[in-house]
């Protein structure tokens, strides 16, 4: 019997890049197939070919043995393919029902009006059939990420999808939500649906999938049975060499308090408390880590500390001085370095070359711009030094930032920030979307700085990163610190529970899962306790 999906020798070229090179993929009906690979390995491109967003340069797509020629997603949808993108394709101000039926609205009055009652009914029916918990009338912007994902899946099912493609579905979920998702996948395959899910997480691929195909640099490097493989084998296939998961990490030798944050509250633009009364200290020579699922207030907290976001309550002290309302420029000048989470938005001016980017943040400093006049000679020498010291490739200061790979962009930012001789480094997801070699390099440099007595505030959603580098580790959930732990004494499972909002001593939360966690409104005092306990 022919496979439900068969991609045969797919090659996709973009100007200057081969994103997929002769890739084969076979998926059996009623199974979960994981497509595993690092960022940039070509997983998403391959799935976009299957979904009709890209036409392959060569190769063929077959469904149940029938060759297909998709020219647009519409063709793919008609052939029973549904895609759940990493960034949800939902219209925020519209309701769940409106989103699910978008493009296929049931009509009445000869097509002149949308049959709103009919649409709602269809959505409720569909959700019941697969046991999904969604509110058909809620606006997307008001529902949780987990629910948004279920809406995306329903959207595909509503269009009659037989084959579902999920692109990095777990990236934005808590461990408990991930469990729920995998239950959903089981239910779907039980009802005969076929699922392909894209991931770069080895554990998840092994847990959820029946079969695994591994991509590297646009090529297929292996297809294995999920029950007959090991993490080590997959890791090696993915990156092509042994991976060092452990970071060499000397004992903490913490000195004076460099930065102190007390009871800080930051409201986002919807007046929701993104950071809700957080307190901590970072000492010279220590790495203070903050772990948590993305979107729990980390970004706002980091931007508040670095002076990019206004603080609504509380105090931030740096080197003994109150800097709560000082400008970003003053904080840079006083020795605060910041590796931002989004290097292409914040950290680099993409249209500028590296000479100009090396000046970012120091343009008013005496070193490069005495009397407001920029000394381009010195600035260029500075950029050359960063390129040299931090192994930025290609080593060309005239290259524009956008022409560099993610890893090299990041190394340049790291270099620029470290060369400020900072007393505090705020590093937000410093290795996100960066190749393995650069990750090691950045980790080493961070620890070197710590050895030199610099205080480091590290935020990351990669557990092994924060766990491996930090001396003390806080876990943030919905804008509050759930707990501050010793990373060496805590297991990944314990951290997972903390990240899902389970307070220590809450018990194991039973079948709590996401719903319980989100509804559990912790008393404010609990938070203060956590903060106090940490200060003591």
């Amino acid at each position, binding site marked *: 019997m022919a496979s439900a999906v068969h991609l045969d020798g797919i090659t996709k070229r973009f100007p200057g890049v081969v994103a997929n090179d002769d890739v084969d993929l076979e998926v059996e009906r009623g199974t979960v197939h994981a497509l595993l690979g690092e960022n940039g390995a070509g997983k998403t491109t391959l799935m976009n070919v299957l979904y009709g967003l890209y036409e392959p340069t060569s190769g063929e797509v077959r469904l149940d043995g029938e060759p297909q020629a998709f020219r647009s997603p519409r063709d793919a949808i008609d052939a029973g393919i549904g895609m759940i993108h990493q960034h949800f394709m939902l*219209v925020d101000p519209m309701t769940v029902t409106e989103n699910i039926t*978008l493009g296929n609205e049931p009509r009445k009055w000869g097509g002149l009006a949308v049959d709103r009652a009919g649409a709602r009914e269809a959505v409720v029916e569909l959700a019941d059939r697969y046991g999904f918990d969604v509110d058909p009338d809620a606006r997307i912007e008001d529902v949780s990420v987990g629910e948004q994902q279920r809406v995306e899946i329903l959207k595909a099912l509503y269009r009659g999808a037989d084959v579902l493609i999920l692109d990095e579905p777990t990236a934005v979920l808590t461990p408990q939500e991930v469990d729920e998702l995998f239950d959903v996948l089981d239910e779907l395959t039980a009802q005969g649906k076929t699922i392909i899910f894209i991931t770069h997480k080895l554990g998840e691929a092994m847990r959820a999938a029946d079969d695994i195909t591994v991509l590297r640099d646009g090529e297929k490097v292996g297809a294995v049975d999920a029950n007959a493989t090991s993490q080590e084998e997959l890791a090696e296939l993915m990156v092509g060499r042994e991976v060092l998961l452990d970071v060499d990490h000397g004992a903490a030798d913490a000195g004076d308090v460099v930065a102190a944050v007390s009871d800080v509250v930051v409201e986002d633009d919807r*007046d929701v408390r993104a950071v809700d009364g957080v307190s901590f200290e970072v000492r010279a020579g220590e790495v203070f880590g903050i772990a948590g699922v993305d979107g729990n207030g980390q970004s706002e907290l980091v931007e508040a500390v670095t002076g990019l976001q206004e603080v609504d309550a509380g105090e931030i002290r740096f080197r003994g001085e109150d800097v709560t309302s000082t400008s970003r420029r003053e904080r840079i000048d006083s020795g605060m370095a910041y590796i931002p989470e989004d290097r292409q938005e914040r950290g680099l001016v993409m249209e500028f070359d590296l000479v100009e980017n090396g000046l970012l943040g120091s343009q008013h400093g005496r070193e490069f711009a005495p009397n407001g006049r920029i000394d381009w000679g010195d600035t260029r020498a500075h950029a050359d030094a960063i390129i040299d010291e931090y192994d930025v490739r290609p080593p060309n200061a005239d290259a524009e930032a956008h022409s560099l790979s993610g890893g090299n962009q990041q190394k340049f930012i790291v270099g620029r920030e470290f060369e400020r001789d900072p007393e505090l480094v705020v590093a937000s997801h410093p290795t996100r979307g960066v190749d393995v070699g650069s990750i090691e390099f950045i980790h080493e440099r961070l620890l070197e700085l710590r050895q030199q007595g610099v205080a480091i505030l590290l935020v990351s959603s990669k557990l092994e990163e924060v766990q491996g580098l930090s001396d003390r580790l806080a876990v943030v959930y919905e804008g509050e610190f759930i707990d501050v732990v010793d990373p060496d004494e805590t297991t990944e499972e314990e951290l997972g529970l903390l990240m899902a909002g389970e307070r220590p001593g809450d018990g194991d939360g039973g079948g709590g899962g996401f719903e319980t966690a989100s509804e559990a409104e912790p008393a404010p005092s609990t938070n203060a306790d956590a903060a106090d306990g940490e200060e003591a």
Partner: protein
Amino acid sequence: MSDAAGDGEGGFVERYSTRALFAGTTVAAVVALLVAGLLFPDSLAGTLAAVLTSENTLAAALRLSVPIAFAALGGIFAEKSGVINIGLEGLLIISAFGAVYVTEVTGGVWVGFVAGVVASTLLAALFAVVTIKFRADQIIAGLAVWLIALGLAPFASQVIYNSPNTPTVQTMGSIAVPVLEDLPFFGALFSASPTVYLLFLAVFCSWYVFERTAFGRWIRASGENPKALDTAGVSVTHVRYAAVIISGVLAGMGGAALSLDLGQFTGNGPTMVNGKGFIAIVAYLFGNYNPVGAFLSTMLFAGLDAVQTVLQLQGIGVPRQLIRITPFVVVIIVLALVGRTQLPEAAGDHYETEE
């Protein structure tokens, strides 16, 4: 409808209250004025009150609203779909001239009206191609549309009539609804130019399209998250073309109504359109992209204009030149108060299907 006003994201509460505050202040001021006018009929307040409650003022406000409200409706269609159409002013100019020209040639005022709409639609179609197919910056292309029309209409008038102003042609006249036209004050609603009724129809149809039809949803999705629409199998390009062309049709009705109401096109300086297209933009921003809201805020601006015209006729103290700039000043104040307008998420961005 009131929920459509809440389309914005969370921060809308704050903006909404500014809006409410502004509307509330306006209403309070008007009420205070009316009371004062009632108490002291001979004072300035008395005169103002008389002006405000006069049927003529309402009639004038309606007449002045027509071009602005049509253009605002057009702007809503374009911008909701993700294309900021700052060239509405140009669409009004070109249709105002086209309508008078064809009326003068054919003698048929409705033929002229349709011709004005066609002229505006063609220019809007050009704008659509330039911004959607050739991915031009929407603001700059919109500016170009304005400047082209600003040059072209007086140019054509000069060529044909040897003057930037056209000769006068017949006007639309007015349609009166028996009995209702005799109502005090509101009678003005029932004895008006056919374009006023057309405007009511257009406001209702626009509201209906956005709130009740699939196409309306596609327009919203195309402006908020084009990718969501694209992956749902609806062509973003087609939706945007349709929306921009509709904006051309609507703005064309506005321009044609403007010139055929007077029976002449005047093309000196900023032409007879004189910023109405830009006021339309502010009107729909203030109306939060809701057709009814846009119409009401247009009535507010036009009401101001109408009051100043009546005051001028009555020879009230304030200099003419200063009264004339009040709508512009009000627009600036409104913008300063309302502040950030809740643009559709993807407005101004090009969209490619990545093929």
